[in-house]
């Protein structure tokens, strides 16, 4: 690990000022950062510690949930309001990492976790995301865990986090603050960028901008939501495929549905075709199976991850059954 300086600002403005140092990066819970630093995937000359900004609030109104960007994964998962009104968020968090990591990791950090692509994580390999235009060995190589949606000839890395899948399904927005700029609010989906031919640009954050909070609308579908995660072992593993699903069923008819997939794309992947196929249809196992089959619409798998096409559809089918139960 290279050396760095550590600034510990006490306000947003102090944070923006500390980030003027060339190459400086923010650090929140640090659970991913520390691994990236230790493996020399990143080597910033300075870190700006956000911990003293607090921003740990978890609050809700009948209309909306607000998660401070520095709330820990453990605290959000255990929050009674989250567990009743936005269930899939709690379930996604409890399926993520380990209890120790969840005590450290934050909401904002989890949104920005870097890919687990083995080539990105190995400085001995080429990787367009880590070293622009160095190549992508994953496309012909070990790509079992990588994307079946949204990739490009430059990069097929997948986003590893669970909570953002639930957040994207529920139509969450994020609150951003930057130097000399009023608060701006954007849909969480617009935080992320597909790799295209610049996979090293992963988000639409402006320079020095900080995620302050996540806002999640309340809805009957969010209340009756669930998160299903399939992985190589029963616990403490990244998703092969996952699905966040919320259903609003009235009189046996699906009034509203929200569906997003994890482990299959460079960002949490909203499955609009599935949502479309569900709305207005009877809440039966047959119609769920029919809708779930649409989860793989538009998939472009590579040799090692073709299995994810069927698996994604089955993950959605299972999640729909659970959400409707």
């Amino acid at each position: 690990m290279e050396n760095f300086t550590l600034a510990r600002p006490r306000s947003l403005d102090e944070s923006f000022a500390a980030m003027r140092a060339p190459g400086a990066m923010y650090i929140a819970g640090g659970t991913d950062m520390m691994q990236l630093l230790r493996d020399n995937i990143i080597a910033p000359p300075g870190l700006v510690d956000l911990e003293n900004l607090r921003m740990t609030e978890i609050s809700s109104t009948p209309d909306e949930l607000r998660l401070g960007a520095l709330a820990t994964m453990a605290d959000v998962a255990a929050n009674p309001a989250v567990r009743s009104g936005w269930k899939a968020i709690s379930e996604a968090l409890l399926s993520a990492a380990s209890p120790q990591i969840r005590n450290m990791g934050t909401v904002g950090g989890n949104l920005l976790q870097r890919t687990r692509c083995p080539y990105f994580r190995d400085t001995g390999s080429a990787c367009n995301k880590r070293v622009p235009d160095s190549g992508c060995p994953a496309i012909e190589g070990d790509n079992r865990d990588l994307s079946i949606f949204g990739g490009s000839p430059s990069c097929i890395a997948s986003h590893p986090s669970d909570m953002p899948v639930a957040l994207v399904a529920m139509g969450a927005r994020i609150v951003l603050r930057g130097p000399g700029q009023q608060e701006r609010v954007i849909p969480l989906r617009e935080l992320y960028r597909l790799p295209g031919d610049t996979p090293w640009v992963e988000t639409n954050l402006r320079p020095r901008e900080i995620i302050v909070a996540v806002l999640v609308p309340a809805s009957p579908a969010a209340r009756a939501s669930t998160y299903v995660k399939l992985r190589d072992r029963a616990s403490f593993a990244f998703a092969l495929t996952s699905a966040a699903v919320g259903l609003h069923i009235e009189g046996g008819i699906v009034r509203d549905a929200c569906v997003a997939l994890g482990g299959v794309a460079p960002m949490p992947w909203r499955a609009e075709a599935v949502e479309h196929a569900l709305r207005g249809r009877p809440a039966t196992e047959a119609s769920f199976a029919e809708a779930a089959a649409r989860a793989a619409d538009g998939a472009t798998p590579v040799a090692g991850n073709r299995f994810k096409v069927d698996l994604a559809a089955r993950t959605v089918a299972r999640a729909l059954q659970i959400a409707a139960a």
Partner: protein
Amino acid sequence: MPRADTTRRELLGAGAVCVTAGALATTYPTARARAAASDLSPAGEAPVTPITLQINGQSATVGIEPRVSLLDLLRETLELTGTKKGCDHGSCGACTVHIDGKRVVSCLTLASRCEGKQIVTIEGLADGDRLHPMQAAFLEHDGYQCGYCTPGQIMSAVALTREGHTGSDDEIREWMSGNICRCGAYPNIIAAIRDVAGAREG
């Protein structure tokens, strides 16, 4: 020759600071800490900053580089070697300690972010010669073979019991998932935790 009642740690640490017998020294000379830090990071030019940490109820002032993990600080500078380094990537749990009452992995924790927080390590669990009930239960149930993961297992198990995640063996397994045991002592680890949790309820 060591006396028969000499502990393994005293034997291994002969000539060094003896943690089990003595109290943690309140202040560590900065020069010594600097030497330890530069051993870890020969290229180092970042400032060595003195920080004061609360570890097992005692205060320790050390001078460290910002990049030093809490795990390396504990082991290399403070010679609290009960906390183990396994993967150094947060995957194995051997380095689990408590910060402000919550279990965390010390390998992914920057020591310089711990100022003002209460840190408890495996060395801080026993009350003098009286083992913590979880330590006693691990002995009783043979909850280890090689013992390398054991300090982390016990720190996690103590936290898990406090968190109330002992409702069933499945719940214990899930909430102990951050601690890996290559020897496969899991059944006995679960028996030890169940024992302590049951005694609490009863």
